[in-house]
Structure formats: C-alpha cells, structure tokens
C-alpha cells in the first residue's frame, strides 16, 4: 500500500531514542500475555510471601500477621475497586459498605447458622455479586461521577441499617465469630494460617481479574470509559458491561470483607463507615488504579501510614499530627507518582530485569 507513508516521529515507544527504521517485516508487539518475565517476578514474590507466611513467631509475631491480614484483605477489596476506577472509568464511594456486607454475611452465617467459614466466605462473594449488580443498575443511566455519588448512599446508609436490623446483625454489638484455626496437624497460629489463606485468595482473584482485563473485556471497558458513543459503535453493550463489572468488583470487595472479618472476628456497624470507602479509594490511587501490585501497595499505605507515628503517642496533639502526616504522605505520593506507587515498582523491576539481561548478554559474549 503506497498510501502508508510512515511518519517521521511516531515510533513504537521502545524505539524512540534510536533513528527511524521502517522495517518491512513488521512484527507485532508481543501479546500482552503473562510473559516469562512477569511469571518470574510473580513467582519470586509468591515465594517470599510464602516464606514469610511460614516464619516462626520470633520473626513475625501474631500481631504482625494480624496487620498483614488487614493489608491483604484491603488489597483484595482495592483490587476489586480498581476494576471501576482504573478500567470502567467510574467511581464507587460505596466499596467500604460492600466490604462490610461481605464481612457481615460471613459473620452472620458463621455465628448464627454454624456454616463453615469457607462456605460463608463464598456466600459473601455471591451476596456481593448480587448487591453489586443492583448497585450497578443505575449505571445503565448514569456515568462517571454521578454513579459514584449514588454509591455514596450505600456507604452512608449501611451503618445505620446495620444498627437498625439488630435481629439479623446483632445491632450495635455486631457479630463475633470464633477464631479460625489451622487444620489439625499444621503448625500454624490462627493469624498465620489466615495469612496463608488470604494470600492464596489474593493470588487467585488477581490472576482471574487480570486475565479478564487483558483481553476483550479490558478493551471494551477502556473504550466505554473513553467514549460511550464510540464504544457503542463497536457493538459494545456499555450498560451491560458496566453492570457486570460493577457486580464483579463488588463481589471481590465483599470477598475481601469476609476475609477481613475472619481476621478481626468482630464486625460492628461502625467498622464500615463512609471513611472506609474513602480509604479504599485513596489506597487505589496511591497504589495505582490500573495495577494489582498497586492494590497491595495501596492497602499497605492506608493500613500503616495513618498509624505510623509510633502507634503509641502521648501528647494530645499527636493524633492530629498523625492525620497531617497521613494527608501529606497522600499528597506527596499523588504529586510525584500520579499513576501510583506501582509505577515505581515497575520501573525498578524493569531496571533490574534490564540489568540482569545485559549481564547475561555480556556473559554470553565473554564465553
């Protein structure tokens, strides 16, 4: 085709610094699959975390496992939220409430109906899916910000509702469930065992989600987020997809909540306020709303940074200072890493990979 004159400056990003070469054998960029590199890194990360999970108490205490469990369960919820923030281009201010719904579903099933906890957790997932689909219905008419603010409603209404429905939820007392113990014979403490469980769930969920987003669905979401008219012109049923994504996102958040409940063991209405929803959003942005590694980083941020000023404080003002520090940290991250801290990790990883590959090459050359 002669009309296809290659323009001077636009080049594939990787080749930008080199001179233009109009190659005739045009190779497509590698398919965005789980490439070897990613697999290698994921595996390494998994091994490290697994080792951590098996660490003796002198290395990682039960309290630290408890904190890590908070991080992992938050990370799951943020991962779910990312579907909306990073891909569907909408905002949910209600994911804290969905998290709470997941927690309560598990709590009620375990405490009042003697359901084994794994089943209860699955039930939470299903409840989240259903509630999410209902919540997503307004998405049929609304987009972006308006949808986000409608979800504000569930965030604001859940705590008083939980208080009101005391026959179901135990009212302000909330629900307490027994400790989840490791299967007999395994030398794990309860928080340690939960950490293992949570890690596995996190890995599976994130794997499923990233598969989903990598292909057809991810493109459709991106299209819908950038222009609904354009998406529709490509046969994308934007409404249905938005509802579906909302449901999946909510289900994942509820799953996180269910596991969170197993960690804290008591859920009360005040645990799932509007502020939780806001924290989840902050976590997503800090980590990078289009990254699942970001979800983990963001979760760690919102769990640890607000408690960072030594945890134990004396002078009355320290609590306020802590908030100031938290706010400042949030702002700094956003200013310097507008695409989230995950970008930082990616850079570091790329640099490492590049260095190791150059090393390998130079070794080859030497031999």
């Amino acid at each position: 085709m002669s009309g296809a004159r290659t323009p001077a400056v636009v080049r594939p990003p990787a080749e930008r610094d080199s001179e233009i070469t109009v190659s005739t054998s045009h190779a497509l960029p590698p398919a965005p699959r789980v490439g070897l590199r990613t697999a290698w890194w994921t595996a390494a990360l998994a091994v490290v975390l697994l080792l951590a999970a098996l660490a003796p108490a002198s290395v990682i205490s039960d309290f630290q496992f408890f904190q890590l469990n908070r991080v992992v369960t938050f990370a799951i919820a943020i991962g779910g939220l990312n579907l909306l923030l990073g891909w569907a281009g909408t905002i949910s201010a209600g994911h804290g409430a969905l998290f709470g719904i997941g927690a309560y579903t598990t709590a009620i099933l375990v405490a009042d109906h003697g359901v084994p906890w794994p089943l209860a957790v699955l039930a939470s997932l299903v409840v989240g899916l259903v509630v999410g689909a209902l919540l997503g219905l307004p998405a049929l008419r609304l987009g972006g910000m308006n949808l986000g603010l409608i979800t504000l409603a569930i965030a604001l209404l859940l705590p008083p509702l939980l208080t009101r429905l005391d026959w179901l939820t135990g009212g302000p007392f909330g629900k307490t469930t027994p400790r989840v113990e490791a299967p007999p014979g395994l030398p794990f403490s309860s928080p340690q065992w939960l950490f293992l469980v949570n890690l596995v769930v996190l890995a599976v969920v994130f794997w499923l989600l990233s598969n989903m987003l990598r292909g057809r669905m991810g493109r459709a979401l991106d299209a819908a987020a950038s222009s609904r008219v354009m998406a529709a012109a490509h046969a994308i049923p934007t409404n249905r997809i938005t509802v579906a994504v909302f449901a999946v996102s909510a289900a994942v958040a509820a799953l996180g909540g269910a596991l969170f409940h197993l960690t804290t063991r008591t859920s009360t209405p005040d645990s799932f306020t509007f502020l939780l929803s806001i924290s989840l959003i902050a976590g997503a942005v800090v980590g990078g709303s289009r990254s699942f590694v970001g979800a983990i980083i963001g979760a760690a941020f919102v769990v640890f940074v607000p408690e960072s000023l030594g945890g134990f404080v004396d002078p009355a003002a320290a609590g306020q200072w802590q908030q100031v520090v938290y706010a400042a940290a949030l702002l700094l991250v956003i200013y310097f890493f507008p695409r989230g801290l995950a970008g930082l990790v990616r850079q570091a990883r790329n640099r490492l990979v590049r260095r190791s590959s150059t090393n390998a090459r130079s070794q080859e050359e030497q031999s």
Partner: protein
Amino acid sequence: MTAPPSAASTGRTDDSAQQRPVLSIRDLSITFSGLRALDGVSFDVPTGGVTAVIGPNGAGKTTLFNCISGIYRGEGDIELAGESLEGKSPHARAALGIARTFQTPTLIEDDTVLANVMLGGFSQTRAGLLSHMVLTLRSRREETDLRERSAEAMDLMGLLPLAAARAADLPHGLRRRVELARALVAQPRLVLLDEPAAGISHTEALEFADLLTGLAERSGATLLLVEHSVALVMRVARRIAVLDFGKLVVEGEPSLVRQDPRVLAAYLGDEAES
C-alpha cells in the same frame, strides 16, 4: 430535477434485480430545538462499492450517520438489508454489521494502536467474562485470531510499524487510519466513513481513494462516505446523495450529480471545474 426516492430505487432494481440495497432510508427526519437537521430524507444505498453523501456544512450528513448508527433517534425508517433498525440500540446495530468512523477521530488515547484496532473485533468474538478469567482455550484462540486479523488491517493502512505506539501520540492524519483499520476488523456489512480524508494531504487522499475502492471490492463491505474532498468523491463513488438544509437534493450517478445546477450553486461552486 428532484430524484424521487421511489424512482431511484426502481432504477436500481432494474440494474440488479437480485441485489437488494444494503441500506434503505425512508422519510427520515430529526429536529433539534426547532432546527430540522434532517427533513424527510429517503434514499437507498446499493450493496457493494462506495456511495457518497455530500453537502454544505450543517447539511445533516453527520446527523444522518448518527441516525443510522442509532446515536440519534429520528422519525422514519431505516432498514439494513431488509431488516428494520427501529428501536435497536447503537451497539445492537453495530453488532448487525454497521461500523463507522467519527468526524473527530475517537480513539482510546492511552492504549496502543494495536489495542485500538483490536477493539473493532468486539462483535466478532464471543468468549464471555468467565471464559476470559480462566483463560479457556476458546478465549485464547479468539484473541490470537483477532490479533492476526488486526495485523492485516493495520498492514493495509500502513500502521503495522506503529502497532505499539500510544494512540495519543499520533498526528491527526494517522488517527483516521487507526479508525479505519478498527472499522475493518469488525468485518462489517456497511461502513460509515465521516470525512476520512480530512487532514490528509491531497496526494494521499487520492491514494486513499484507491484504497477505499479496493477495500470495498475485497471485503465485500459497502462504504458510505461523507467527504468534502470532491475529487475523492468523484473518483470513488458509485452513487452520490446530496444533502442541503436537511433535505435530499439529488441522488444519482456522479456524472449526473456533478452537472446538477443546484449542486453547483449550493455546494460545489467553482470546485466542480477542477
């Protein structure tokens, strides 16, 4: 001479009795706060080849496209290969095989050219959410097929070296080609092209014209073209419909349209002589 729609369609039936028009528009009207942007427009788009819609600015060309693709709801009836599009949503129409490009190219800015083009294959793939989640064989095969087809379309448009470039970095002219490649990947029955040659240099516009005719032949898709580049239109169009103030002025063979006094007055001006 007004071309009564019935006459026009009868004429065609004589030409190719077995060929039904791919698109037939009957008495299409739409009003925006008192402004009749389309006013009882009726004409047929014959199957295959390139048909063009021309007319002055604000004549209603883009509005016509928007009605066909379902973004606007006008009165009147539109049939795609005999099937009424009445009440069908834009995405349903797209799924029936109507692809389009936009007057202002609309891409997913943050994605690569390849991903943008692959988007066009949405209606051609079927694997669902769950299937993608667990990476079933089917979902993977569909993705690979789609990549290959997208590569072909990009090659056709000369975009292959840019497959990994970010859409936002492309100059204006190339964005149009990405749109066109995207439309082709959908393997559509009908492609609506809204000023595809705007911002492309004249030389390229003519090369582009050949590309379009070639495309129409090879893919079997019918192209409906809105374009201000008269040279291009005259070169490629089998038939031309002329709109002015929302009304269909003339519809017919390029040679006829070119000489029509009303078209000369309303639109072509001295351009006609070139």
